[in-house]
């Protein structure tokens, strides 16, 4: 065993990269659920975002356009879900599950001709002086722009939900859609926008995997991250900063366990492999012991006649 082989600075830097797709998808879903909608299609929207972003980046030569296309593709797919559940009054659980299956199939079809291609690289930012600082530089100032966007988005969503009028309306719709409707808020319109926001975030998260974290396209490459994002929202008690903590914890333990393996730590590999799931759940369950609970209208369909 040689723990000195693990470089803590590089470890923290790479755990941030591993956590970002999860964070983006979880923040999107958090807003959707705060509006009272349960969209289980996160995995499907992520994988479609992954291929849409990859294809656009390859064709246009710009990873930046790729991310925009990924957000649009994720949002477009989520509109399908919105039409089914908000206007056709379909069951949200079944619609979300079918969205995931549809997304996995659609992405495989879209990706047929993009296997084995290298995407254009998204460079890391480099701030003179700051990025060259020891320790702090690689951790805080040496990443790609989307990673910072994820953190900024968390802060923005937190502020929006807590302090803004928009956040109040969104929460009202999620807690009691009949009361919100009686007050004159357009419940369906607000939910539609929340669902599209969630789709766009999931698409970004998917593209982060295909353009930065791996970077290449292969079928099924999100490999369950969308489901973990869904679980993370619940364990984080619908609080943005806890979702960030959970995502970093999960990403962190994932990277740490590989590091421990490479350093030859004498813990059976199977235990190391399951540790990200276990530790994230335990920490967030302990944190969620306070009185916060799910939005009261979560998963219930709204129709103005009722």
């Amino acid at each position, binding site marked *: 065993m040689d723990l000195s082989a693990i470089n803590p600075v590089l470890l923290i830097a790479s755990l941030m990269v591993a956590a970002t797709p999860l964070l983006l998808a979880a923040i999107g879903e958090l807003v959707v659920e705060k509006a009272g909608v349960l969209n289980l299609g996160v995995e499907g929207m992520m994988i479609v975002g992954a291929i849409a972003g990859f294809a656009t980046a390859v064709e246009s030569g710009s990873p930046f356009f790729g991310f925009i296309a990924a957000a649009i593709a994720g949002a477009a797919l989520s509109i399908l879900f919105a039409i089914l559940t908000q206007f056709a009054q379909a069951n949200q659980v079944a619609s979300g599950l079918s969205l995931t299956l549809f997304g996995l199939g659609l992405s495989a079809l879209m990706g047929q001709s993009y296997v*084995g291609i290298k995407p254009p*690289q998204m460079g890391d930012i480099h701030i003179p002086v700051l990025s060259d600082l020891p320790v702090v530089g690689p951790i805080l100032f040496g990443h790609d722009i989307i990673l910072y966007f994820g953190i900024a988005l968390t802060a923005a969503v937190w502020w929006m939900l807590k302090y803004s009028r928009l956040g109040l309306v969104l929460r009202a719709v999620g807690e009691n859609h009949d009361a919100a409707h009686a007050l004159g808020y357009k419940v369906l319109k607000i939910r539609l926008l929340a669902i599209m926001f969630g789709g766009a975030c999931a698409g970004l998260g998917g593209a982060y995997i295909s353009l930065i974290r791996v970077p*290449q396209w*292969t079928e*099924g490459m999100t*490999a369950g991250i969308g489901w973990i994002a869904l679980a993370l929202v619940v364990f984080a008690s619908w609080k943005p900063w806890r979702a960030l903590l959970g995502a970093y914890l999960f990403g962190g333990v994932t990277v740490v366990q*590989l590091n421990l*393996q490479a350093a030859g730590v004498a813990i059976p590999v199977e235990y190391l492999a399951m540790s990200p799931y276990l530790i994230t759940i335990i920490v967030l369950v302990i944190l969620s012991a306070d009185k916060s609970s799910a939005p009261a209208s979560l998963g219930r369909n709204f129709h103005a006649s009722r």
Partner: protein
Amino acid sequence: MKLTNLLTSAAVALGLAAGAAMADTTKVGFVYVGPVGDGGWTYEHDQGRKAVEAEFGDQVETVYVENVAEGPDAERVMTQMALEGADLIFTTSFGYMDPTINVAKKFPNVKFEHATGYKRADNVSTYSARFYEGRAVQGTIAGHMTESNIIGYIGSYPIPEVIRGINSAYLHAKKVNPDVQFKIVWAFTWFDPAKEADAAKVLIEQGADVILQHTDSTAPQAAAQAAGNVITFGQASDMSEYAPKPRVSSIIDDWAPYYIARTKAVIDGTWESVDTWDGIGAGMVGIGEISDVVPADVKAAALAIKDAQANGTYHAFTGPINKQDGSAWLAEGETADDGTLAGMNFYVEGIEGDIPQ
């Protein structure tokens, strides 16, 4: 079950239904563990399938199902293929071993060929390639090229085939560079690009400047390229899109001659259950072009190892070799027998860490 699989299965069903109308067409089925576009293992098997089609034209009809999980799903796919009239089915991953045997019992008239396994029956052959011969070449290059003396190895599952590769690469790296150290990470998957990329990054962060992989995707190559001063080897396929650096050479699986020979045997009615284990000499294992990043003398040393194995004058496991615990395995000049190699479940002396059980 992914939509593509369903679509493929549907296409298989349609294709077979149409094919049934034509008399004496030999149907050959292939079961793949990854997508045909993985750029590695499954890609090469699919190249073999295409070679069969090109060789026999209208005489054969090939069908395949990709992304078949090892386990019960595999049994279902094989059963479906057999029911739809396949005469010969190639099952191309180690984890299909028991499913293949189970399905073969139910269809005694269908011939099965299982890759990399060790269980045979009257209608089940096994075939594999001596990848460890290629690993000996890679180990030689890796030992010469590493400057940090740390070589990273991404293992898939702790099965004999993978362990053989690790041992062979280690022995030959050690031979040319006594200070070399192996860091081994088990991914517990054949194909998961995000995980493979993470594993490669971790190894690079811990000082490895050579990455060997026994997983199927090109993700570790991409990670090495991003890191800069790291070299890799193509696995199963040439992966030449990452040449000349990071990919400096590769092990290429060439299944085409075997697939053509076995299909011919079915057509001629001469098929028998056999165990085939061919290496560089027979052409089943190819060594991808060694790129110019490798100095000429190292390249010559690697090619010498390759040629000596091809003409049978050198065996990758030649004594004296001790097991990890220090006990003697092979005496001076003794070479390993195929039985021990087929079931290899121990590291050789000098490798650190334990094999997951």
